[in-house]
């Protein structure tokens, strides 16, 4: 028995337009998904070439969900994306070369080599860097929403998490506080069926994680996360509801982790049938087919777009590779913020 609303598919072009996406927006979303996938595919190559230290994670299969939600945010909204959310950073405007520099631990990555992978954020772009401890930035997102409420600003915070991290206590405290204070926050659970090797059935025992919204007093919605149009529509609804003072929503976006947990993991524990089923619904392919069928985006236009993305990413990669490794003499800098840190625009 589920208490969550099961969202309709994205539907036709006119339905998408009704949900605020004109043809240009749709092409932009497609481009953003290609950029996201392109960044991670190049990341995997870089890893194999030994250019990425440590480990490497991708969000393959999650592009539609990440981009769909992020594209629904307003310019002043903020969010706490996690390790499957390169797409969120792409939408918010992080230049791809800086992401490559980050992967490679270079000086020009957003963390200047202090952290790796997608462990970064940029307050000016409305993103807060994740900590590995999942989902420890969820209460932080709720705090952003609290600040918006205190200051009566029409802004919304988006807090991402996964089917695994859904089981951590931080989620409970965050959602409850958001509900009690009716804060403008949207909780987005990317349920990709696994937490590392752990399948859903060993993680939780309800039909949908979105059913948990009812336990706090707000709405839960389940959406097909491979359907970017539907994801976008539901995210937009939830975000605008929050902005209008309607309080939080829990949006569960059901996807599949199309690769292993990280580069070292071949995901042999995932049943073939499950993977095969979702491979058919690879969000990028699916959206390409949708664009062709519903929005008349032909082969040529698609190819041109893909080529432009490829070209831009090749350049970005070059630029990143030219970035130096950080100087070890700088190690001690910045453990503590200095008083002028509070001169940043958002602290004034």
């Amino acid at each position: 028995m589920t208490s969550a609303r099961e969202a309709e598919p994205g539907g036709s072009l006119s339905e998408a337009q009704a949900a605020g996406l004109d043809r240009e927006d749709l092409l932009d979303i497609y481009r953003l998904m290609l950029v996201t996938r392109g960044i991670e595919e190049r990341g995997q190559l870089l890893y194999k070439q030994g250019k990425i230290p440590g480990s490497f994670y991708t969000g393959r299969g999650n592009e539609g969900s990440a981009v769909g939600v992020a594209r629904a945010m307003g310019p002043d909204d903020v969010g706490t994306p996690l390790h499957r959310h390169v797409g969120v950073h792409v939408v918010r405007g992080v230049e791809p070369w800086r992401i490559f520099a980050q992967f490679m631990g270079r000086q020009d990555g957003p963390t200047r080599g202090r952290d790796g992978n997608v462990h970064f954020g940029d307050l000016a772009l409305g993103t807060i860097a994740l900590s590995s401890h999942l989902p420890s930035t969820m209460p932080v997102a709720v705090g952003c929403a609290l600040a918006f409420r205190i200051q009566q600003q029409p802004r919304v915070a988006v807090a991402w998490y996964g089917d695994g991290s859904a089981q951590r206590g931080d989620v409970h405290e965050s959602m409850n506080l958001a509900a009690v204070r009716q804060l403008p926050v949207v909780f987005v659970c990317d349920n990709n069926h696994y937490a590392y090797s752990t399948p859903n059935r060993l993680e939780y025992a309800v039909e949908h994680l979105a059913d948990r919204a009812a336990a706090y007093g707000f709405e839960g919605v389940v959406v097909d996360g491979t359907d970017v149009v539907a994801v976008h529509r539901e995210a937009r609804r939830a975000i605008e509801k929050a902005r209008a003072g309607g309080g939080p929503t829990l949006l569960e976006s059901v996807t599949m982790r199309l690769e292993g947990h990280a580069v070292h993991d071949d995901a042999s524990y995932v049943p073939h049938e499950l993977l095969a089923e979702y491979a058919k619904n690879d969000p990028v392919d699916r959206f390409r087919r949708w664009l062709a069928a519903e929005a008349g985006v032909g082969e040529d236009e698609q190819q041109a777009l893909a080529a432009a993305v490829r070209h831009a990413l090749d350049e970005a990669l070059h630029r990143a590779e030219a970035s130096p490794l950080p100087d070890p003499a700088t190690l001690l800098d910045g453990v503590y913020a200095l008083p002028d840190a509070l001169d940043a625009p958002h602290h004034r």
Partner: protein
Amino acid sequence: MAERTYIEAITECLRQELRRDQRVFLLGEDIGGFGGAFKATKGLQEEFGPWRVIDMPLSETAILGSATGAALMGLRPVAEMQFADFVSCAYDHLVTVAAKQHFRVGDAIPIVVRLPSGGGFSGGPFHSQNPESTFAHIPGLKVVCPSTPVDAKGLLAAAIADPNPVLFFEHKHLYRSIREEVPEERYTIPLGQARIRRAGDDVTVVTWGAMTWTAAEAAVTLEAEGTSVEIIDLRTLQPWDREAVLTSVRKTSRLLVLHEDTRTAGFGAEIAATVAELAFEQLDAPIRRLAAPDTPVPFSPPLEKAFIPQADDVVRALQDLAAY
């Protein structure tokens, strides 16, 4: 100037900060109409309303995590843990998120966590602890432990102005037992500066919080016996004022480190280790540490008295040191 108890000085500071800066707000359990378990925020919700003095659910992680989020959005949250002991429930947030964010991505997190700490009232194992050493070990956090009303007010104002997460330990024993003239206008005392609580020539005691008063009591006895004791009140543990300690030890050549937190790997070890390295040649006696023994804080009065260092214990330690 007006006479203020330690807790009145804290309340006054909070009121002044709330008045002068719209960005400052308070959050914690029972801090609103009730004024907090110790009444440090009494009257503030009345004056500033429920969105600047916010009653929170029993959710320490949500309290400190949301403080961090609000700080990132430009506000200046001052959170209260009902007792310092309960900060263990939000340990992960402080150590994992708040402490490391600026180093990693350059985002300043100006939050203050107020922590009523310390024993002496049969609060038992969960309402008496002094967890300051634990946090002083974590790079990125600041740790403040005032011992007087004047210091409490000025250090709290400095903590609120500081762009980093600051753990502000208020010793419950001092709340109402200590009273002095406190400037009425706002002022700040820089974090990281020790204060010479009492000047002396023969032995140095380095301590903080309620133990400064215990040390002062012992010093009177020693003085009567002809031993002159210098007491350094560290006031903040992170950053801590090495220079003040080293200067004093170079003068007296004898050091006692005193604290109410438990001994093993307590912050006293850091002080002793630092002095052992940097003032080795000037020492005329082994560095002594006097601290609570390595047990949880016991409830029953005779046990608790044996747990918390008493003036007599300090006297004996100082006599030993002076005689060495």
